[in-house]
């Protein structure tokens, strides 16, 4: 058989026809697991009713986890109503739901063991690509696609071409995987991966922790990609050993002669701390280059950078310091929150004057807890800084950076890199 990329192997494995597929083929697939969120009550349930179906496909019921992350807990009457609709629907059809406050879907999903190497994951959220860090093909889908899975338990995919990203070298002290990702994004723009998958490899990737890899897979979608797949290794296995994984794992490597659309290489040791400037994640400048930017708010959270390792970085910087800017820290999940409490990070955050909250998407998409207003400037550890994304209007500005940059900037009240020497 012809050599295959990881993408082609995983899609072949999950094709209903059980035939090897290659870039350019169209394939019917049954995903290993399905992620859903408020897209379910907002779009999918009303459209599911329109199909006339009286029952859910058993495969969907078995393999779907719905996590109410976007709306927050008891925020608005309409959101409360949407959450109630979800619970009723779930009860009726035996669906599993994680209630508002339990965490952000792209953190909870892997904590609950819904992702493993070789999986095909589909989720009604563009950042479903996050789970590519588990050596899986994970892709965001829309509300109607979710309805198709609810009815048929399967859907179709176009097998994408793949771009290989090889990272050599190690990140220097004070530089993080967020900086690495943003650096590539600045160079290659948000259109880079349109309709294509990314596969990461190289010593520089293996050197990263799983959490640092999750940040990079998460933002594969900002680079335009449909997936961002990481290699399988001991670090990943160590994590899998701690969660209730469903089924057997299938670590997947590319064949030697696999056909890549592009082979991109970057040396991690040359990367500096950077921020993405308003209003696009590819508008990237080094922290030094960006000049004096006074901040009205610092936001540390989201599916990109709110896992325990991110909070550890923030805690180290905020210890015995005071923030000069309103700063809000939102943990990635209630499990992350509990760990942060145990490790004493929450005490550090609060002593520094930062606000600490239950877990939700929060202001990341302008939902709740830290929306910004007209004319305000924020630095955020999230993944998008589009006009109005965190609230406000075209006069509101969001800069994106690593948790370290966010914490140091919070202390200084303006954009500042953390402990990095050239």
């Amino acid at each position, binding site marked *: 058989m012809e050599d295959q990329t990881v993408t082609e192997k995983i899609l072949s494995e999950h094709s209903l026809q059980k035939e090897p597929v290659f870039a350019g083929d169209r394939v019917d697939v049954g995903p290993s697991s399905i992620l859903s969120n408020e897209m379910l009550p*907002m779009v999918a349930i009303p459209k599911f009713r329109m199909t006339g179906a*009286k029952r859910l496909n058993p495969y969907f019921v078995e393999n779907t986890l719905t996590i109410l992350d976007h709306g927050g807990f008891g925020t608005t009457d309409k959101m409360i109503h949407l959450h109630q609709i979800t619970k009723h629907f779930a009860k009726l059809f035996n669906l599993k739901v994680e209630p508002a406050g339990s965490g952000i879907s792209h953190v909870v999903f892997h904590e609950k063991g819904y992702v493993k190497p070789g999986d095909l994951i589909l989720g009604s959220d*563009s950042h479903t690509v996050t789970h590519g860090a588990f050596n899986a093909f994970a892709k965001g*889908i829309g*509300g109607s696609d979710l309805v*198709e899975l609810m*009815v048929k338990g399967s859907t179709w995919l176009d097998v994408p071409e793949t771009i290989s990203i090889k990272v050599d070298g190690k990140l220097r002290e004070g530089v993080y995987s967020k900086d690495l990702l943003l650096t590539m994004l600045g160079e290659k723009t948000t259109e880079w991966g349109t309709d294509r998958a990314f596969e990461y490899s190289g010593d520089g990737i293996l050197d990263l922790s799983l959490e640092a890899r999750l940040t990079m897979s998460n933002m594969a979608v900002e680079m335009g990609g449909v997936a961002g797949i990481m290699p399988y290794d001991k670090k990943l296995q160590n994590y899998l050993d701690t969660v209730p994984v469903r089924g057997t794992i299938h670590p997947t490597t590319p064949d030697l002669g696999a056909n890549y659309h592009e082979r991109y290489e970057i040396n991690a040791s040359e990367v500096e701390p950077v921020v993405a400037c308003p209003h696009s994640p590819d508008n990237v400048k080094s922290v030094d280059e960006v000049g004096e930017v006074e901040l009205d708010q610092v936001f540390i959270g989201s599916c990109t950078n709110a896992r325990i390792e991110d909070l550890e970085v923030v805690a180290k910087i905020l210890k015995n310091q005071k923030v000069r800017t309103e700063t809000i820290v939102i943990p990635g999940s209630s499990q992350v929150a509990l760990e942060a409490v145990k490790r004493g990070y929450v005490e550090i955050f609060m002593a520094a004057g930062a606000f600490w909250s239950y877990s939700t998407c929060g202001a990341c998409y302008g939902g709740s807890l830290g929306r910004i207003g007209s004319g305000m400037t924020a630095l955020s550890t999230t993944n998008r800084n589009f*006009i*109005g994304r965190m609230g406000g209007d075209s006069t509101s500005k969001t800069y994106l950076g690593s948790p370290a940059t966010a914490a140091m900037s919070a202390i200084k009240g303006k954009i500042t890199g953390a402990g990095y020497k050239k």
Partner: protein
Amino acid sequence: MITIDDFTNIRGKVMKFGDGMNTDIIIPSQYLEESDPIIYCRYVMSAVRPTTYDEIQKYEDVIFVGGKDFGSGSSREQAPDAIKYAGVKLVIAESFASIFFRNCVNVGLPLLEVPNITDKVEEGDVLLVNLETAEVMNERTQEVLNGHQIEGFLLNKIKKGGLIPELQEYVKLHELDKINN
């Protein structure tokens, strides 16, 4: 010669937008709590052009023209639904983000990729478009632009009105509309 005698031919007036019209611009998150597209479509593109919805209602048929990476960002299907329910007949852009493209097909909103369209078309121009051949004629300049043809599989889905009508047939065929099994 392009005529407007069936679905694949669309004639409409251009409302022009720039590059990077992401889903947070197309429909900002604060309107998503409303599940009914007839209501939230009023806020379509309001982040960059607050009068968009009202303008669409004034014209007979409207075609959105955008630049690069139209629809990047979130997987929210409310983005194409907002455009569709506001009354827009077609979206032409230089390029589309992947999930947005598929969402358009799924909700039955016709779309076409036409390189350099923003250089060739002005606000208010009237375009005659053949979806089947991906030809776009600008009535003002009489120039015919060639877009990327939409594959038959996807064009058929758009013609049927998207995924839901298709699933309605599936449900009937497999008797999933009956409660007993």
